[in-house]
């Protein structure tokens, strides 16, 4: 087996793990700014160069809502049926705060290690 292939495969597995939490964090950040529709979320992620397909988002939003992190409300739409708009719940806001602190710590840890 090619050595670089193995390396890439290993990195891919690690990244899959990292991406999971990272994605959730980004979604929470987006939802903290107000009520957003699923396409808004995806558009913002695209703008941040995070390519995801909608298929990834819908189960995630559903899960987060079931866990009580997000809440949704129905908005009427002229183009079709009513739409679900998501925003952070109170608990979700607290969780996001925790994540912000932790990620800042992680970032400074990485910086410190890189400087060594």
């Amino acid at each position, binding site marked *: 087996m090619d050595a670089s292939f193995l390396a890439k495969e290993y990195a891919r597995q690690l990244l899959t793990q990292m991406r*999971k939490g990272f994605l959730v964090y980004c979604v929470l950040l987006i939802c903290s700014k107000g009520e957003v529709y699923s396409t808004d979320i995806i558009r913002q992620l695209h703008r941040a160069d995070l390519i995801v*397909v909608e*298929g990834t988002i819908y189960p995630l939003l*559903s*899960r987060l809502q*079931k866990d*009580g992190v997000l809440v949704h409300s129905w908005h009427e739409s002229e183009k*079709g049926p009513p*739409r679900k708009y998501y925003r952070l719940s109170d608990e979700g806001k607290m969780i996001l705060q925790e994540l912000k602190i932790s990620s800042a710590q992680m970032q400074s840890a990485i910086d410190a290690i890189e400087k060594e």
Partner: protein
Amino acid sequence: MDNIEKVHIGKVPFNIENRAKTELKKYLADIRSHLDTDTADEVMHDIEARIPELLAAHHVPQDGVITHSDVVRIKKQLGEPEQFSTDHISTETGSTPKKLFRDTDSAILGGVASGIGKYFNIDAAFVRAAFFVTTFFYGFGAILYVFLWVLLPEAKTSADKLLMSGRPVTVATLQHYRSSVQKSIGGGSMFLRHLILKVVRLLSFAGTAITALLLLTGIGIFSGLFYTYPFRPIVDGYGVDYLLFGLLWLGCLCVIGLLVMLTIRIWGHRSRRLNMSALAVASLFILTIAGACTASLLVYNHFSSKYGNNKSLHALSVVNQTPATPPTALLLNAGSDINLTYVINNQPLHAAYEAYPGLGRPSINIVSNKGVLTVNADHLEQTAPSCLGDICKKIYLPIHVFLYGPALQTLNNTNGGMLTINNSDLGSTVIVHTANSSTTNINNSYVTNMSIIASSGSVVWAGSSTAQTTHVVVDTTSNVSAPATTALDATLPNTCTSPSIFSTLLSISNDPQHLTINGQPQTLEQLQQNSCVATSF
């Protein structure tokens, strides 16, 4: 060109080509198969609501025709069915492992029983009952409880409390838990807890001092110190009751010791380091208590059954070398372990001793030869069956010997033993000769002429008996209490400046008609001035 059907997607009506319909249906079914079952319906609903928007953005309005290329575009936009799987993004689902905590919210003492109950899904009352019952087996339940109290962590955060019950930790469950728990923390268990804590603190100081006492007592029992003089009388059958009481008291103190450990636990709950040292101290304490109590109980068990009041009379052989000549003198040549009671009856000579169950036959020699009845028993040493190693091997236990024979005229007790005669008519003359710390008791008896010669620290108690005439010789180290008599002639040392441990050498209980000391008749005043004599009349 193709056939079309009318369908609705998310309640929006469309026309769709056959091929596209099959493809779209399969796509949606594939997506559903990759979803978590508990959110599948919701997600499918969202997706179906989304599709009309995607179509509208690509010029397929309501009632428009969906073709194969539209489906391809939808698939591209939404993603492959595998990408809907939450293996890509997962949060905690499924059963969470349970962790064993102490449940301090529904605790009576430390929440150990509640925590265990939650972990195994049984009522805490059963756990408490188990602890209580096993405490009666050498305190196992109580000791285990305190150990767990020290070792198990407290369920402090809401997340801990959920883990304790095995529920997954999500925002929803946390919210639900918080609101339900607020109601359940009642005042009842808290009050009881505070009360118990107060009692524990009160006892903790006493408990620490008692630890030292327990250690010393345990050492005393274990080392056999209690079998030597002056503790030996305690082991002499009748005194074992006191030993039992003492050991029961020790057992009660074990409870106090446990409470001390609880106090250490309560004080030490802040820092982890203090916890460890508290645990070490507590462990040492338990070991000491358990060791002392068990040893004490073992020893008591052994002795109460063997040397308690279960003594029985066993015969001793009397060698009568001159049967034609009945004895008129008794010579007790035995050490301080011998307690001889001479019983005057008209039976042939025979003897018996009180045997301790389990001990061997003592070496006591009784010989009647040419009128002298000699009882020989050297320093009486019995070998006990081994208990606690070599501690019990050699025990010096007092032996009570009964000797039955005719009335005697001479009693010689010269080797430290104890000779007792009770309730007897001693005849016309009795000479009592005691020496070398011997003790002779003449109780409730009568003799016409009694002679008492006491020397070298010996004692003669004749105060309860009666004699017509009494003759007493006492030295500075001995003590005689004279019988009630009509004529007493005493030979005393001239000075009693340094009396022995008994304050006087001669005690007189009645007023004899004739009293001479050292050949001199005495008046009452002279008698009272004589420091060698005590009068009680």
